[in-house]
């Protein structure tokens, strides 16, 4: 998690919840901060409904 004392700058969301928020929202400009490539791979896989092999994002 971003180490700022001020974590209120972000919504902290589990991956599934993140995807729900993105699909519900029509916000035009969103920043997504990910902790590791595994999380990023999960987001891509679930959002685009595709399989991404581990090696492809490592």
């Amino acid at each position, binding site marked *: 998690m971003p180490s700022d004392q001020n974590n209120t*700058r972000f919504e*902290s969301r589990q991956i599934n919840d993140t995807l729900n928020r993105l699909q519900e929202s029509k916000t035009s400009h969103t920043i997504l901060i*990910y902790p590791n490539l595994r999380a990023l791979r999960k987001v891509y896989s679930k959002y685009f409904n595709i399989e991404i092999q581990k090696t492809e994002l490592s």
Partner: protein
Amino acid sequence: MVTDSKQNNFAESNDGIKSENSILVFDSYDIMNNPSLKPVNISSPAFSGHDMPIINFLYSTLAHADSLNKESVEFWIDIGPFFNSKLNIKYLLQYEKISSRILKDTILRQYCLFHEKDFEIRLKEKQQNNVLDCHLKKIFIMDSPQP
């Protein structure tokens, strides 16, 4: 935008999507550093007054979507190449500001993907705030431990 290595994977697993040209996958680094992406010659003030290949790419993508009668475009951009090339943080901040203007006037929705460490370590606090101020929604993705 994602890496080249993923391109084949997208294509193989999404034949329907591929045939509609609905997903375009490019290497962010190549686009950001591609001088052959010439400045666009259009009247929209949102696109003018810059020399950033990636903005030209945005415009090209929108034009492509328009040719396919798409009603919206989602632009997923990995910010990592801004930190790993001749580009710099000033360039990143400029891009975020310009793209915010563009997003107001188009069917584009943009998702900027930052690795936590890039955001924390490479950006000073003021720069972090400047980046955040450009975004309407800010999400930190929490990863659950592997089973």
